[in-house]
């Protein structure tokens, strides 16, 4: 299956938006505005959706041509809400998690997507997204295929260990051993939740 690479999944969806207006503003503009108002970093709804590596929402206005004259030009019949996400695991559990953790945001963003008014629950949402899905091999290069928590903990450990190594270079063996023991206790290497980086966190 082309959308899957190891344990990572590359989802690409194009959801058509209703052609129309509300109080002088077209639905695609309302939708774009809502996307642009989403919080960033830890406040982003994607930070709440488990196992999201990298996700993006944007509006596809039309197709563009760079050729000269006398070329038959196609146009899209509507504008599309494009939702792409790279995540850990399989599609259905991921979308279930999306609905469970960010239902209000999902409803708000997809409100003017064609036929989204029929989506009432997680099962409907999964069915809807699958209808809009493209088969692609678009993956975010910069991530392993481990679970998000595993990756965040790994990054945290790497960073903390680097600082430990820098701080303790050349120390006598006994002192180093004692310091490392303390370091390992603080690090709680088997505790995947804490201490660690949090989803969406960009600064210590």
């Amino acid at each position, binding site marked *: 299956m082309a959308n899957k690479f190891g344990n990572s999944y590359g989802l690409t969806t194009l959801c058509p938006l209703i052609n129309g207006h509300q109080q002088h503003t077209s639905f695609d503009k309302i939708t774009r505005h809502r996307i642009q108002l989403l919080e960033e970093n830890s406040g982003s709804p994607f930070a709440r959706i488990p196992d999201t590596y990298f996700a993006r929402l944007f509006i596809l206005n039309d197709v563009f041509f760079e050729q000269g004259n006398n070329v038959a030009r196609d146009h899209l019949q509507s504008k599309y809400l494009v939702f792409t996400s790279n995540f850990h695991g399989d599609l259905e559990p991921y979308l279930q998690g999306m609905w469970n953790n960010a239902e209000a945001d999902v409803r708000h963003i997809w409100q003017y997507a064609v036929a989204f008014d029929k989506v009432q629950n997680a099962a409907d949402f999964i069915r809807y997204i699958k209808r809009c899905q493209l088969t692609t091999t678009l993956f975010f290069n910069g991530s392993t295929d481990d679970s998000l928590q595993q990756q965040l903990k790994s990054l945290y450990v790497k960073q903390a260990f*680097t*600082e430990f*190594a*820098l*701080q303790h*270079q050349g120390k006598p063996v006994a002192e180093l051993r004692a310091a490392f023991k303390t370091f390992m206790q603080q690090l709680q290497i088997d505790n995947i939740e804490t201490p660690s980086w949090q989803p969406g966190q960009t600064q210590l």
Partner: protein
Amino acid sequence: MTMDRALDLYDIQGNICKGYGRFGFPKARYFFLEFHQYAGARAFLQQLIPLITTAEPWSEKDHPDQSDKPQATTNIGFTYAGLSALGLPRRSLDGFPLEFRMGMKNRAGILGDEGPSDPANWDPVWQGEPVHAWLSVNGQSRQAVVDRYRQIEQLLQQSQGSVTIRPGHKGPQGSLQPWQDASAVYENGRVTPKEHFGYVDGIGNPYFAGCGNDPSRLPGRGKLTRDDGWQPLATGEFILGHIDEAREYPIAPEPHLLALNGTFMVYRKLHENVTTFNRYVDRLATDFDGSRELLMAKFSGRWPDNGAPLVLAPDDAAKAELDQQLAQLTAKAAAGDHTAATELRALKAKWIDFTYNKDRHGSRCPIGAHIRRANTRAALETEKDAFNTPSALDDRRRLLRRGLPYGGEDETPADDTEQGIIFMCIGASLERQFEFVQQQWINYSNDFHLGNDRDVLIGANNGQLTDKHIIQVNPKQGKAPFFCTHLPRMVETRGGDYFFLPGITALRMIAQGIIDPT
């Protein structure tokens, strides 16, 4: 049809194709002009043109008569503001690349000029409106420099205020000078190729097609071929109006004659905090497994005393052996032994002609060492045959360096005395070459898989724990790498700008006011 055509070296300014430093010009004076009235400024340029030095060949072979080489040289470059003040047509001005039009000060974010290097802290000459032109005089002696300077000063006086010198260079004992003097560093009265930290500098400048230099200088200076050979870099990497490594003409203004045989130059006054450097090295050397010299070499990639690359001599024992070999061959060659002379030349060629192919882990030359950052020599091709040629990623980021040290003559170098390097580098694209190297390779390390590490010597480090440099070891030897932490700011930017160095034809046309892009 011929693939390559000789460059018109008489139409290219001097110091571009070959560095003056190598030809016995250890002294220089740089000064900066303001144009107040363009007719007068053009008249001044017309009088200056006969003094401008070109890239005409002067080596002993080309000209057995040594008198051909002048006592002093003169060269000129213009900022965007300067070209504008000279009345270049709007369409020609608009054709210059964005970074040139913006000037160095406005590129501070890209160049890492923050904190002590922030443009607000630069010498007074750089404050306010940009300077209009850079003039440089190099001399075989200080007297030759002063004589040529006086000659130009007279032309300035004749311009009756149309052209003036912008003063404001910080000099010795808190003085402000109307010019920036520069000089090779002397030891026991003899010229050395060293800078004030004690490193031999300026080794291994690029070799490009048509430069007129001896082809024996090509290995190590050109671009690498698949069979481990070297070819000259495309002319257009360094001279405008010629095809570059992408088989394209570099971005350049119209008309064609304005750009042809011209190029861009970075001028940057880099202050060296000599006390900070020495203290840091002294402190670290007590913990380091090796000599102080080896530690310094692990910062730069070359041994400070004679510039031998670490790839050739990776530790103190190998260096001692190399020095012995060098001394023996030098003595024999001096005594007339031709075989020894040939061997000596072959050995010295290894100062330049090397790659990091057998040093992937950096156990000889650290991956973050200065010379491995500034000239990556195919080290970025980490997978076999990943690119068309081994150095494809490096060939478009090469810098012709043409600087000289300054200061250190009248006072003992410390942090608060005035000494450093006048860094000048030349290339067809400031953005693709100098700015990229400065931003991505000097002040960042993603391409080297070294995270946020910066260059030890010229990086914008701030003394924090993670401001670090890693001295790698051979992973099979079971030794620990050595971490140089809390790197301080060794070098601070004290000013500079971007200059266009026109060809001689273009300079005449600018002086005549006949640049016409239509």
